[in-house]
């Protein structure tokens, strides 16, 4: 039987109906605890067919195959293929049966959704499943299903992590052409367990090009009802609502669900009226629930959503809209003009980069630009590392900033959200490369007004390129709202009218084209003295011209002042609360009038706050990071030799703290606060030495890793901090590190010492394997082990050279190894 596509059906104005629960019905009919329901496609095929048919008879238009938990993590490939084939056969048999019958719903449109549930694993960095591995897990069912055929759409459902859902969507896009529907699970606070809100889910999945988006499971219809209008308000695609019949509870020893078919249907009628387009049920709902729901809602029209034309990007928790209030994009994760940052990139010093991100977030950046391009660096690989780590610690949306298309695609794929992309321009070759990536992965793209002929001098010339960009984007199905036009501001020092033409372009794009704009505002002041004054003034003028977003240094007090005042005076700051917060947080800097001061971890002022004693030792022993950094800066300013600061002050302070720790008059958190204060001082010294072109004398190299299978790294990080404080050159390989990586790194750096950490008994074998490989491939290296589960006995058993019970002891052992190493090498 030929049927119209589900996409056309969605535009027909009629409500579409999903079926209801499967697992809960199977349980009622004998599915045993721990038994995999997907096997019923083979063992109870008649029951599954009849369940599907009963849903069609109840009025459902879309049935879900019994494949929710089917994937290669649970099933061997042969069995998986057998089950998916049987599941599709069962669904098709049910459809053939209803359509060949004289049932009242025989002529209704009937569709089959290939049902895809979560993997059951948490993705990295919170869990151990790598993003690309997750894509492959989903493909393990999508590929055989596609080869088999017989489904009209893919339903990715019950997702409580948008990252996992993104992996599933990409897997579906790369294996089949059918429409993709996605539903996620919200709690009563309208958040996924991993933190995303409804607006984030809509923006992210719409960006990925799915056909419909919505929610299912966990809540009953009453609790879901308040979330539906939020989805409807944000979405330009149809909204799906598949609630539970409440949560199971015990009543006289039986499992019952709260919501009966009548109550369920009444709530669903309200949900339908609030703008849902596809409704059905999840756990606990039965053909009776669906039949009653269809009966009560059949006359409620389904209004296909209007395009919302929102310019929106997301992280994995929240969405950022480009509307009237300008958005601040922090520019500090970028090597241009920053020696210290370049050094961090070369050293793969990810922590330094993360620290830059954290400081910008604390200074109220809304988005972080990420640019790690250096000629001598493998940019695709590094951008993936930096994005992975940044999204592991910060929840701000990222702007992926690269001219390397491979780095861009890998970054977009891996990014946990809908990214801002920097950039495309009017050159045909660039448009041909970038726009398809925006279409595939979703995103808002910065569009630079430059083409093969360069940057036009006048506003009119730039507008022509803007028109070309809008038209070309449309060919890929992208909308004007998916572009942020960057009029490109050149230095006013080299062109008197540079500022004026740029502002005119911003104004015209905003008011005539109703487009969104962005500027890297600091270019305007290039080559001028006291650049911050010019940059801030231009920033203010650009905002006045309608600028939607600015790429700025959020740590600059002048930028912060301009932004706080603009937002307040333009009516974007209710009761002036943001301005008051800004003024209060920056009281000291504002009164001091330090126009060039920057905020952040090392802000000025704290060193002159009248602390009882102002020695560096005092600040370190008290664990006061900012005063320690300021004191170090002051000492360097007075001409004190950096090595004197390290050896006579920092190490001395650490020894005092260490002794107190051993005497148990001070505890581990205090030891760590001191270590952090010491790290702040070290960072000042490191920056000073890089800027003055001198090399810091370091002790020997030490490789550190938490072994494969173990994701606990607190202990390992403590050891790292202390070792660095004592001047060791630590190469931190992170957590869950395979033996081969540890050994390879040891060989590469010819390190005399490798430190391995494990928390669980189950990961000690992995430690043993690492040591064995180390003995074979890098016999010169000593292995020191530690971690909650380790004992001297264990350490001896696995062949370690040394067991250290804590970080202090590790420093002692590392010093011994270092001294022996010096002797050998002299």
């Amino acid at each position, binding site marked *: 039987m030929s049927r119209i596509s589900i996409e056309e059906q969605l535009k027909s104005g009629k409500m579409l109906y999903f079926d209801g629960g499967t697992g809960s019905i199977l349980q009622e009919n004998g599915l045993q605890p721990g038994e995999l329901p997907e096997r019923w496609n083979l063992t109870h095929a008649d029951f599954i067919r009849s369940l599907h048919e009963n849903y069609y008879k109840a009025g459902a238009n879309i049935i879900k195959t019994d494949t929710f938990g089917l994937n290669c993590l649970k099933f061997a490939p042969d069995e998986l293929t057998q089950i998916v084939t049987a599941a599709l056969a069962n669904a098709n048999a049910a459809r053939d049966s209803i359509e060949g019958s004289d049932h009242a719903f025989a002529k209704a449109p009937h569709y089959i959704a290939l049902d895809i549930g979560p993997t059951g694993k948490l993705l990295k960095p919170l*869990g151990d499943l790598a993003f690309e591995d997750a894509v492959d897990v989903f493909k393990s069912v999508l590929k055989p299903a596609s080869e088999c055929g017989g489904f009209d759409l893919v339903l990715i459902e019950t997702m409580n992590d948008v990252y996992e859902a993104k992996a599933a969507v990409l897997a579906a896009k790369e294996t089949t052409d059918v429409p993709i529907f996605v539903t996620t699970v919200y709690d009563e606070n309208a958040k996924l367990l991993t933190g995303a809100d409804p607006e984030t889910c809509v923006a992210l999945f719409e960006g990925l090009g799915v056909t419909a988006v919505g929610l299912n499971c966990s809540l009953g219809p009453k609790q879901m009802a308040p979330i539906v209008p939020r989805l409807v308000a944000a979405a330009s695609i149809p909204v799906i609502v598949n609630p539970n019949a409440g949560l199971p509870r015990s009543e006289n020893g039986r499992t019952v669900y709260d919501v009966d078919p009548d109550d369920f249907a009444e709530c669903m009628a309200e949900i339908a009226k609030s703008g849902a387009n596809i409704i059905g049920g999840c756990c606990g709902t039965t053909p009776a629930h669906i039949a009653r729901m269809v009966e009560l809602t059949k006359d409620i029209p389904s209004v296909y959503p209007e395009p919302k034309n929102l310019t929106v990007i997301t992280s994995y928790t929240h969405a950022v809209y480009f509307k009237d209030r300008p958005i601040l994009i922090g520019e500090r994760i970028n090597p241009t003009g920053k020696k210290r940052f370049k050094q961090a990139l070369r050293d793969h010093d990810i922590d330094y980069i993360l620290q830059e991100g954290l400081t910008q977030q604390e200074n109220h950046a809304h988005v972080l630009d990420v640019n790690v391009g250096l000629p001598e660096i493998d940019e695709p690989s590094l951008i993936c590392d930096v994005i992975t780590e940044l999204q592991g610690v910060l929840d701000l949306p990222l702007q992926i900033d690269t001219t390397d298309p491979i780095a861009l695609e890998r970054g977009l794929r891996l990014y946990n959200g809908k990214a801002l992309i920097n950039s495309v321009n009017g050159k045909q070759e660039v448009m041909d490369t970038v726009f398809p990536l925006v279409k595939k992965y979703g995103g808002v793209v910065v569009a630079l007004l430059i083409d093969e002929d360069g940057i036009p001098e006048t506003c009119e010339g730039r507008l022509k390129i803007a028109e070309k960009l809008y038209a070309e984007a449309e060919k890929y199905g992208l909308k004007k709202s998916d572009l942020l036009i960057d009029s490109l501001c050149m230095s006013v020092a080299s062109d008197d009218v540079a500022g004026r033409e740029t502002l005119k372009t911003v104004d015209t794009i905003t008011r005539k084209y109703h487009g969104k704009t962005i500027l890297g505002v600091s270019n305007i002041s290039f080559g001028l003295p006291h650049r911050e004054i010019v940059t801030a003034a231009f920033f203010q003028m650009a905002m006045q011209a309608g600028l939607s977003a600015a790429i700025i240094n959020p740590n600059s007090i002048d930028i912060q002042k301009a932004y706080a005042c603009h937002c307040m005076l333009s009516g974007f700051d209710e009761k002036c609360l943001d301005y008051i917060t800004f003024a209060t947080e920056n009281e000291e800097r504002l009164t001091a009038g330090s126009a060039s001061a920057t905020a952040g971890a090392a802000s000025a002022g704290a060193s002159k706050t009248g602390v009882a004693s102002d020695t560096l030792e005092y600040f370190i022993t008290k664990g006061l990071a900012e005063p320690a950094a300021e004191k170090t800066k002051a000492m360097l300013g007075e001409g004190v030799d950096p090595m004197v600061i390290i050896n006579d002050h920092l190490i001395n302070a650490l020894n005092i703290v260490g002794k107190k720790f051993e005497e148990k008059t001070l505890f581990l958190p205090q030891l760590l606060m001191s270590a952090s204060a010491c790290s702040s001082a070290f960072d000042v010294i490191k920056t000073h030495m890089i800027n003055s072109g001198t090399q810091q004398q370091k002790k020997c190299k030490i490789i550190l890793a938490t072994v494969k299978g173990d994701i606990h790294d607190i202990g390992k990080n403590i050891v790292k901090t202390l070792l660095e404080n004592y001047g060791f050159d630590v190469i931190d390989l992170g957590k869950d590190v395979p033996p081969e990586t540890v050994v390879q790194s040891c060989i590469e750096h010819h390190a005399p010492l490798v430190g391995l950490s494990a928390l669980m008994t189950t990961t000690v074998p992995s430690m043993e394997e690492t040591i064995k490989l180390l003995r074979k491939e890098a016999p010169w290296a000593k292995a020191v082990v530690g971690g909650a589960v380790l004992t001297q006995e264990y350490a001896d058993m696995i062949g370690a050279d040394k067991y250290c019970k804590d970080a202090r002891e590790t420093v002692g052992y590392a010093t011994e190894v270092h001294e022996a190493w010096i002797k050998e090498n002299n």
Partner: protein
Amino acid sequence: MALPKTGTIFYHHADASALTIDLPQSYRYMQIGKCGPDEELKKQIDAALEAQLSVCKPNAIYAYFPLTFEEQIGTCKNKHYCIGAGFSNICSDTLYKHIKDCDGVFLFAATIGVGCDRLIARDRLKNQALPMIHQGLGAMLVEVYCDLLEADIQKMYGDSNISFATRYSPGYGDFSLSHQIDVFRFFGKAARDIGLSLNESLLMQPSKSVTALIGVKSTSADGSSTNE
């Protein structure tokens, strides 16, 4: 209320505000001695607790199983007792000692969500003491959530004829951690529903999660255990 049907999975949820904060317990996890934290450290702990509570999402699942005990060697090498608990056959003398008077168990899996793990990852950039502080607070929060869950189960199913043993987790004594595989196989989708998973090293993710058994002892009118 009568004990629930064998193997039926139930969900439990609490607001973070319902948890009874036990700071001294968290100090122990942070390895802070009896004199407690100094003023500077206390300030950091208070701020960390506030951050934790704002992202803490306590959720649990549980099910009831009747118990059988067998003195068995067979597959249970070196262990005297095999405990049949519906979801798994457990060979463990220490668990046997703990629940030998019981005739059923509640199996539960509880978590406070990914918030604590995220804070540990983020705040290590601020200060190396903070991961340790979050670690201690998270461990305390999941334990007090387990206390609340236990209390709720006791309230729901306990009466004058039913008493409960304290909770006992895989990994304690000779109750092997490998039983986590059985626990997760049994809970299946329900574990996913509360965002809980088990990795190949048998670690639960999110890390601040607990699985455990709570023994249930039914007594006859004369006070004797029905299992005797």
